[in-house]
C-alpha cells in the first residue's frame, strides 16, 4: 500500500506546477486553469489526510472546495467574456484600467 506521504509529495509538485503556470502565462484563461490545478492539488492532500485520520470531514471540505471552484469558474469566465468584449484581448497586462 502506498504511504500517505507520497500523495503529499505529488500534491506539492502539482501545486508548484500551478504556481509556475500562474506566474509565466499571459493568457487569462490559462491562468485560470492554473488556479484550478492548485485547487486540485490542495484537494488531493485533503483526501489523503482524510483517509489517514479516518475522518470524513476532509472529504466534506473537498466538496465545499469544489462548490467554491465552480462558483469562481462561472463568475471568472463571465468576467473574461465581458473584458474580451470591451477590449478584444486576453492579455492581463493590457487590462490595467478598470474604466475604458
Amino acid at each position, binding site marked *: 500500500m502506498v504511504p500517505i506521504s507520497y500523495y503529499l509529495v505529488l500534491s506539492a509538485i502539482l*501545486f508548484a506546477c500551478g504556481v509556475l503556470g500562474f*506566474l509565466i502565462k499571459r493568457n487569462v*484563461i490559462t491562468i485560470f486553469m492554473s488556479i484550478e490545478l492548485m485547487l486540485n492539488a490542495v484537494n488531493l492532500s485533503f483526501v489523503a489526510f482524510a483517509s489517514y485520520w479516518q475522518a470524513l470531514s476532509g472529504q466534506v471540505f473537498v*466538496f465545499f472546495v*469544489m462548490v467554491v471552484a465552480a462558483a469562481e469558474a462561472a*463568475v471568472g469566465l463571465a468576467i473574461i467574456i465581458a473584458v474580451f468584449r470591451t477590449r478584444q*484581448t486576453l492579455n492581463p497586462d493590457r487590462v490595467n484600467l478598470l474604466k475604458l
Partner: protein
Amino acid sequence: MTPIAPTFFFYFLSAVALISAILVITRKNPVHSALALIVTLLSLAGLYLMLYAPFVTGVQVIVYAGGIMVLFLFVIMLVNIERAMKEEEFNKQWIAGLIASLLLGGLFLAVYFKGRAIFPSEFTKIPEQMNTQQVGMLIFQNYLLPFEIASLLLLVAIVGAVVMAKKKLS
C-alpha cells in the same frame, strides 16, 4: 483488508497527472491546455479512488471534468481564439516564475523530509461501501449551515455570471 489497487497504479496515475499538468502550463493553445487539464483531473479522480473516497471521485468526474471544463472550453470557443493566439503566450518573467515555484516546491519538500517521521507508512481503511452514506450524513448533520451557505453562494454566482456576460441592450 487487502488493498484495492497495487502500487503500480499509484505511480501510473501520478505520472499521468504530472505529465499532463506540465502540458497544461507549457502548451501555447488554450484548447490543448484545457484537454490536458481534463486528463489531470481524471487521473486525480483515480487517485481519490485509491484513497477510498468514491464520493469525491464521482463529484470530481461529474463537476470538474464534466462541468467546469466544459465551461472553460465554451469560453475558449466564445472568445476570438485566432486573435488571442497572435499575442505572446508566455511573459518575460518566466525566470522569476521558475525560481519562485522551485522555491515553493523546495519548501514543501523540505517540510515533508523534516516531518516524514510523523507519517506512518500504513493506514487502516474505512469500509468503502459506507463512504457516500457517511459523507451525506456529515453534510446534512454537522455541516448543514455551510451546505446551505454554499447553495446561496452558487445562486449568487449564477446571477452574477448572467449579469456580467449578457449583452448590453441599447
